[in-house]
């Protein structure tokens, strides 16, 4: 766990080496072992200096989130961090020089431990990253980071690193003054030792313990400091809508802590850290963003007993933006792609799109030209189905028409191997129906990517009625191979993501029909934490597409079709008024060239706006926009569309940007409590109709006192 050795020069080495893990993490045991080792080195008069380092390829990856989740009360967290801070202060003020030798990344608690050392040296390791990313999970650097980093590099440089959770490379960290030196990999311990034995190390103190210490760049009680915080506060609210308390608390730790000594500052940090750990926002983000995505990436739900498939060549039908995006992701994973379209020219266009994106990355210095060339060489364009021979998987992203999809299915199956998988990227057409065109429906599956596919991390895998577990397992292997996160759903109209996402757009349009100010509707969407308001989103998706899907659904369901607001409003806008959305510059908004979009002034003619006194409050709109999604998500679970609650939440966040601080639609119900969720939905159903009806599953859970998640 914590290797301890002393060399002939009286230098002790304390080496982090957590057993059975590839990464060192700070948890109760490892931290205790570290404290014990450090105390031992400090107490031993023969020891002249201490090297803190790691036996792994990285230094320390951060704090153990499971341990944090297990802490029940803020008091417990506050006391635990208080002990940790005391130990760190004991070490850094003991009068013995301490050097930190980092072979690789030091993140979160890892960097915080490094900052308790007097000297930090990093290996020249291109993969190493340094940063305090706690805020991305609703936490803050609670191991002294909010106090030591600004005291080291100034508040103006420290705050963005913490609030944005940026991870930077060693050279950048050195430039910023976070680490002292970058040395050739493998020599970092020698460098640390050399410093410990140098004159510079004699009687060394931390900057903040040195007489006459001044905060770099000046303190906060200055006109500059006041202006900085005034603007930082507003800009943070601009970005977060007040939904992410961790970032605000980071600002407060710096604001309150820098006005005092470091020991007091650490106490202030401890209080805000405890508040973060205890916050529902952190619990939701840790559960969904961290553990949820981690489990999904590990393919926790993959059917067992199927050997892992390694993909070498896949086929991509349709070279539009979606097809090109999937081809990019696939090529990036080292897999050959046959990119096929009706004509060679169309196929080439898709490849040109990919090359253009990679060229942009090269221009930004994020990719080397030779890498881009190698990737492009993996994409083979064609109009000839014979070229698909040898593909282990073929994905179609052709026009959303049953006939066309049936045609390409048959043409593909004629050339690919009998065990080849055929996947449809449809977002709307049920997979079971599409599989009817297949001679091998067991090998037919839905792989629903999101646009732009080269960037969006989610793939919704849809099981048709006949799809085999083997096909599912192998498809999951592909999703993992291209570095995306899969969720698995059963076949249903709109599957999971499109269906529930549609309820958000529909609710926006229902509000519009009720005479709610469209500006207020979309602002409420943003305040709810959604990335885009529902009307602006409909514009981006295209209102004619919304209408087309609604009409198709109406045709398929016949008399059972529930007419809804989004169908009516889309009919009015796209059908009657020809306002199809952003692509034509005209939707709910006008998009003047070179100007800011604004609500179409004549929208009020068609949807008169109620007087201000009759408008709902923002909170009421926010509740509707969120609860309508949550209710339908429970229905998906109830109907078996979704198998696991965590899939619902991961899919919602990665798929359509459901606010992470809420955890996901189910995470949000979990947050407010199942009993309250039932009561809220009853009230909303009474006021706004059956789309808010309490799903039976939720009512049963309330009765039995069940919950979706443990924490």
């Amino acid at each position, binding site marked *: 766990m914590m290797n301890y050795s002393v060399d002939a020069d009286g230098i002790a080495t304390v080496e982090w080496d957590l057993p059975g893990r590839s990464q060192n993490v700070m948890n109760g045991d490892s931290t205790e072992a570290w404290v014990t080792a450090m105390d031992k080195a400090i107490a031993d008069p023969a020891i002249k200096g201490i090297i803190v380092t790691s036996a792994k390829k990285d230094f320390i990856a951060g704090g153990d989130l499971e341990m944090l989740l297990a802490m029940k009360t803020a008091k417990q967290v506050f006391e635990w961090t208080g002990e940790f801070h005391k130990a760190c202060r004991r070490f850094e003020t003991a009068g013995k020089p301490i050097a930190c030798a980092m072979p690789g990344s030091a993140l979160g608690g890892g960097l915080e431990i490094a900052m308790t050392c007097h000297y930090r040296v990093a290996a020249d390791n291109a993969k190493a990253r340094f940063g305090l990313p706690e805020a991305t999970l609703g936490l803050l650097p609670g191991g002294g980071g909010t106090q030591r980093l600004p005291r080291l590099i100034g508040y103006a440089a420290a705050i963005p690193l913490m609030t944005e959770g940026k991870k930077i490379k060693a050279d950048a960290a050195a430039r910023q003054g976070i680490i002292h030196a970058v040395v050739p990999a493998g020599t970092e311990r020698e460098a640390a030792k050399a410093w410990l034995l140098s004159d510079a190390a004699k009687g060394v103190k931390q900057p903040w313990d040195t007489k006459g210490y001044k905060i770099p760049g000046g303190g906060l009680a200055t006109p500059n400091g006041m202006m900085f*915080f*005034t*603007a930082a*506060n507003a*800009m943070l609210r601009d970005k977060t809508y007040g939904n992410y308390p961790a970032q*605000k*608390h980071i600002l407060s730790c710096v604001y309150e802590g820098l006005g005092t000594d470091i020991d007091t500052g650490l106490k202030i940090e401890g209080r805000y850290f405890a508040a973060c750990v205890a916050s529902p926002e952190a619990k939701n983000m840790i559960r969904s963003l961290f553990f949820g995505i981690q489990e999904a990436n590990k393919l926790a739900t993959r059917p067992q007993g199927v050997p892992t498939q390694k993909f070498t060549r896949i086929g991509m039908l349709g070279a539009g933006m979606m097809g090109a995006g999937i081809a990019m992701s696939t090529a990036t994973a080292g897999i050959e792609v046959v990119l096929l379209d009706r004509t060679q020219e169309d196929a080439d266009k898709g490849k040109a799109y990919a090359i253009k994106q990679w060229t942009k990355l090269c221009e930004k210095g994020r990719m080397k030209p030779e890498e881009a060339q190698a990737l492009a060489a993996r994409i083979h364009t064609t109009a000839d189905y014979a070229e698909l021979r040898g593909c282990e998987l073929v994905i179609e992203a052709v026009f959303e028409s049953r006939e066309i999809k049936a045609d390409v299915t048959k043409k593909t199956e004629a050339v690919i191997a009998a065990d080849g998988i055929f996947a449809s990227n449809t977002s709307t057409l049920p997979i079971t129906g599409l599989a009817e065109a297949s001679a091998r429906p067991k090998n037919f599956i839905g792989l629903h990517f999101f646009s732009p596919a080269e960037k969006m991390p989610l793939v919704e895998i849809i099981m048709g009625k006949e799809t085999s577990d083997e096909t599912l397992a192998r498809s999951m292997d592909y999703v993992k191979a291209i570095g995306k996160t899969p969720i698995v759903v059963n076949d249903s109209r709109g599957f999971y993501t499109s269906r529930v996402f549609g309820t958000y757009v529909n609710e926006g349009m229902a509000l519009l029909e009720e005479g709610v100010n469209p500006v207020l509707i979309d*602002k409420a969407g943003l*305040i709810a934490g959604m990335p885009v308001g529902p009307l602006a989103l409909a514009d981006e998706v295209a209102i004619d597409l919304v209408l087309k899907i609604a009409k198709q659904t109406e045709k398929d369901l016949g008399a059972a079709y529930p007419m809804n607001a989004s169908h009516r409003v889309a009919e009015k806008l796209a059908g009657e008024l020809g306002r199809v959305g952003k692509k034509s510059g005209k939707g709910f908004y006008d998009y003047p060239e070179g100007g800011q979009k*604004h609500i179409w002034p004549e929208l009020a003619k068609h949807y008169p706006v109620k007087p201000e006194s009759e408008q709902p409050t923002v909170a009421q709109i926010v509740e509707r926009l969120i609860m309508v999604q949550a209710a339908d998500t429970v229905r998906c679970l109830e109907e078996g569309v979704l198998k696991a609650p965590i899939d619902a939440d991961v899919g919602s966040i990665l798929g359509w940007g459901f606010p992470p601080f809420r955890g996901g639609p189910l995470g949000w119900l979990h947050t407010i409590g199942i009993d309250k969720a039932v009561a809220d939905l009853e009230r909303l159903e009474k006021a706004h109709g059956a789309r808010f009806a309490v799903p039976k599953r939720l009512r049963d859970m309330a009765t039995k006192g069940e919950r979706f998640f443990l924490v």
Partner: protein
Amino acid sequence: MTEAYIYDAVRTPRGKGKQGGSLNQVTPIHLGAHVLKALRERNGLDTSKVDDVIFGCVEPVGEQGADIARVATLYAGYDLSAAGVTINRFCASGLEACNMAAGQVMGGMVDLMVAGGVESMSRVPMMSSGGAWSVDPQVASDTYFVPQGISADLIATKWGMSRQDVDAYAMESQRRAKRSWDEGRFTKSVVPVTDINGLVVLDHDEHMRPDTTMESLATLKPAFADQGRNYGFDAVIMQRYPDVAAIDHVHHGGNSSGIVDGAAALLIGNKAIGDALGLKPRAKIRAYASVGSEPSIMLTGPSYSAEKALKRAGMSKSDIDLWELNEAFASVVLRFMQVMGIDHSQINVCGGAIAMGHPLGATGAMILGTVLDELERTGKSTALATLCVGAGMGTATIIERV
């Protein structure tokens, strides 16, 4: 209840509140002492009868720190028994000082008070005293802090005031201020600031720009667009007012109050002390009120405070002959006129802070004196003076001539 009477009111002229401004040569303690001396000399005042001196001051630090009211009282040579206290209700501090003085008289615990304010914006700039509101991350975020200019622009946006509207209002303020000076309407109260030799440093309001035209105003760039758009403040206020699609930044230096230096003081006391000292009461204070309201839009408090004071006085809007609302920003006055149903001919008739400037801690006392002078000049009886106040407050005072 004892009545509180105004026996006298004086003010300094207002100097441009920056380096090069005439009163930048003069320390705030000197400005404060100057108006105290003027009150004493004009009224042959036995200062041993003064119970307390209340001064408003919005940046009470540095030269204005450590209870400037008490030290100015000492420096002015008042009897040592006259106490001094400094208060801060942001822009209404000077009026609040008068209200507190009146309240103490009415309560019967004092006989004679001096109330006023002082602010050298050139020597102790705005924001010098810091404060948690905008800076403390918890406070700023939870209360949707934005700078006042953004609030003023929201008011214009929300209630449909165009750039043309606010500029036209500003023009009129300049015109009225010039007319008032030309006609000598301020002569009774303005006491020129003099130096150690008795030489005049400033004898007029030097911030005025009587040559202002709509065209010259039109050339000015919106003052708050940059901080609104690039530092998140537009977004913050639109989160608080989510039915607003975009902020129309209409305010600039020409239609906002000027940054100036100055001081003012009023002599307020009960009837008996006036009789004993041979002072003639000019008006009585009928009622006063301060209110808090939503702090992000911040500047709509005056109508609430006016309504509250009217109710307290048992008066209605039609009982007020003249209105005085500090011209912090043009939209503040335009909105007040909308809400209260007041014609422009009844409000700020002598011009206001857009033309003459707004020495933060002193302005409330200045406008109360100005409107009293105007009542006397026109033979009218009642007036209501009010100011919008930072953090969503409003303060109002109703006076009636006797």
